């Protein structure tokens, strides 16, 4: 009898919770007038400083720029992503901003669906340029289709990878050369996913050679056990942590610094912290979980400002409203632009970033935004002085130098 009662009570509670949950979910999106542009942002996760900053910024903008948005979870599962976007378009979405780039064939299907629904597609922190360049011949037709579709509005990458992978190598070299560490080892993510890592490693090695030629205290680049042809240890996606054995091996070889050209800090941190705390980790990337290890173990941080969302946002708003710039690029390829990385190597820099850029600031408030609502508004097509060049320049101006001034 008691179990029956408990079960009923549990069911009732859950039913109430469902209704409440639906209610809460639904209040987030009240019906609005036809002028309001409906945007869907496909995200990979709904936590973290980047997500929070993005939402805070969009919330601050939606009334001023007259749009509404919902976020929807999308992962690497292209089949599910297609369904998700299809459903959103049926729900009246006019613009899709995706943070996940799926393969060209699936992207084409999404874009075809956008075309049929008079909606538009843009990428945020995705690297379509790389995805499209890195496909097998069977995808060529699909890439061709995407690059000629009016529904494709371009994308902004996270960081400077399209224009200049070498920047990363330079940044990491500059950070390590300031210290006494001279025995280093290299790590990177798989090259097919991050071809930029190759350029970064080449640049780093170049700088090391130059330095060694000019200075007494030579750098030594130590190869890890099982390193790839380029001498760097490939840390795969499936690897949770770089194994302790590897860290022990580094320790035995006298490694003082690990140069990880991708955002591998988290995967390296755990075992370095426990087995070889004297080794410094120089990496590209940012994660809420590694901030506490900065600057003791993690020596370098970097992240694209969440404010970069304004690029796809403005492109979608312009397109839905039928506005365009005088210098609107004719080629879709020219709308695949690069974002900027904010590089941080010291506590002072982090402090500065906290006041000038949303993702670094505590609580990610709009008050710390790189750009004001008014300035964003002035970038919309049709506003005085607005142009595509100005939009791209704004994004490009968010360099470490400017942000950490």
């Amino acid at each position, binding site marked *: 009898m008691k*179990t029956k009662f408990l079960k009923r009570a549990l069911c009732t509670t859950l039913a109430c919770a469902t209704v409440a949950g639906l209610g809460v*979910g*639904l209040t987030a999106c009240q019906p609005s007038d036809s002028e309001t542009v409906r945007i869907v942002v496909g995200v990979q996760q709904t936590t973290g400083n980047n997500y929070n900053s993005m939402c805070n910024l969009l919330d601050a903008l939606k009334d001023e720029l007259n749009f509404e948005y919902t976020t929807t979870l999308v992962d*690497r599962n292209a*089949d599910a992503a297609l369904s998700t976007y*299809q*459903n959103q378009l049926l729900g009246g979405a006019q613009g899709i901003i995706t943070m996940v780039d799926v393969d060209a*064939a699936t992207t084409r299907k999404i874009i075809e669906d956008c075309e049929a629904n008079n909606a538009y597609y843009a990428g945020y922190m995705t690297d379509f340029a790389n995805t499209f360049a890195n496909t*097998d011949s069977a995808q060529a037709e*699909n890439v061709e289709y995407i690059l000629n579709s009016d529904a494709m509005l371009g994308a902004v990458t996270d960081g400077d990878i399209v224009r200049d992978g070498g920047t990363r190598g330079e940044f990491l070299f500059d950070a390590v050369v300031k210290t006494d560490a001279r025995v280093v080892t290299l790590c990177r993510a798989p090259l097919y996913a991050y071809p930029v890592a190759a350029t970064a490693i080449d640049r780093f090695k170049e700088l090391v050679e130059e330095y060694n030629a000019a200075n007494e205290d030579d750098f030594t680049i130590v190869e890890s056990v099982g390193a790839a042809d380029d001498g760097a240890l490939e840390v795969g996606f499936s690897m949770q942590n770089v194994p302790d054995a590897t860290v022990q091996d580094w320790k035995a070889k006298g490694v003082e610094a690990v140069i990880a050209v991708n955002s591998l800090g988290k995967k390296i941190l755990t075992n370095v912290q426990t087995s070889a705390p004297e080794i410094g980790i120089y990496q590209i990337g940012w994660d809420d979980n590694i901030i506490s290890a900065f600057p003791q173990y993690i020596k370098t941080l970097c992240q694209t400002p969440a404010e970069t969302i304004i690029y796809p946002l403005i492109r979608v708003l312009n397109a839905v409203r039928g506005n365009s710039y005088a210098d609107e690029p004719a080629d879709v390829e020219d709308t695949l632009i690069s974002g900027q990385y904010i590089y941080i190597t010291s506590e002072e820099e982090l402090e500065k970033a906290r006041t000038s850029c949303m993702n670094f600031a505590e609580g990610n408030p709009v008050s710390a935004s790189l750009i004001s609502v008014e300035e964003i508004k002035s970038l919309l097509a049709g506003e005085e002085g607005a142009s595509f060049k100005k939009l791209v320049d704004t994004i490009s101006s968010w360099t470490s130098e400017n942000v950490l001034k």
Partner: protein
Amino acid sequence: MSNENSQNKKFDLKELPGKAMHKIKTFNWKEWAKDNIFTLVAMGGFVLLLIVFSFLPQVMRGPNVTFWRAAVLQRYIEQVTVYLILALGACFVYLMGSMDISVGYQVAVFATIFIAIVNAIGTAGAIPLALIVIVVLGLVCAVFNAFVGAYVKLPTVMSSVILMQLFSGLTTYLYGDSGYSARAIVVSLNILNETWVRVIVLVALIAIAYYLTNYTVVGKRAKAIGSNKLAAQQAGADLLKTRVLCYGIFALFLCVASVFAIARKDSFGEADSVSYQMDIMIMLLMGGMPLSGGYKGRVLNTVVGTLTYVVLNLGLSLCGVSAEYVFFVRALIFVIIVCLTCRKPGLLLPR
């Protein structure tokens, strides 16, 4: 009862007291409802969702966003197709009280091999060959599943764990050094994307599954095995043979689903099907299919479960429920179903 002639009358069982079944009724509504309470709850849930989504999207998102329009139904069928084909096949495994968690990885490998063969030859003529290859591969897996279950005295879910590991490894190998996360197919399978083709195929497959489960030896034995393995064996059901056949049917459905999955996007990626096994498990549970299998499971459960699962995703999107809440709502509905359908504990002493 008269005592006349009782002396000489031959003993007749019909004279036994009590209410015997004099007229053979083939269907008793009340009893059916009682035996199929979970199926009914599932069907009720589905209808309820349809009713809710008939008006809620309009209320939430304006008059243009309606559920009952051709575009929505077309997408609905599109999204149901692969899931339903898989679930119908999985139904045979679940009826036996077994489980399979390798579906997604099997689909990934079959689809990739299918694309590779078709692309290598480059013409539509390659499709039958590719199909034969994946069917053969599927049947090999079926035999493996059945053998592990029957001889290695392991729960059948273990064989699918082994297959899952094997196939996830194979997927990584197939995609690993290529650098592509997905492969496109050069021969168009667009005919399969026509809504009428999908509907015909689905109706046909439902009919086949229904026929196989209700009117054939293998279907009846699968259910008997699910309900009581020992009794089924003592009534002549060969465990291994039935398992091979059930997993074989599953494999055939799986191959058909793989082709439809490719057709949908003209490509297939390594991550595209990883959630299938869990989705299917949830769909079957949502449809009122008992995880222990047996006579209480039926094709109807599979169909209702799949339709509910997909309509839930679609409807919530139409209502504009944002990312955080979709999972929340889905999880809660799932827990409610499990709560409603889980067997009530008996009042007997621990057994």
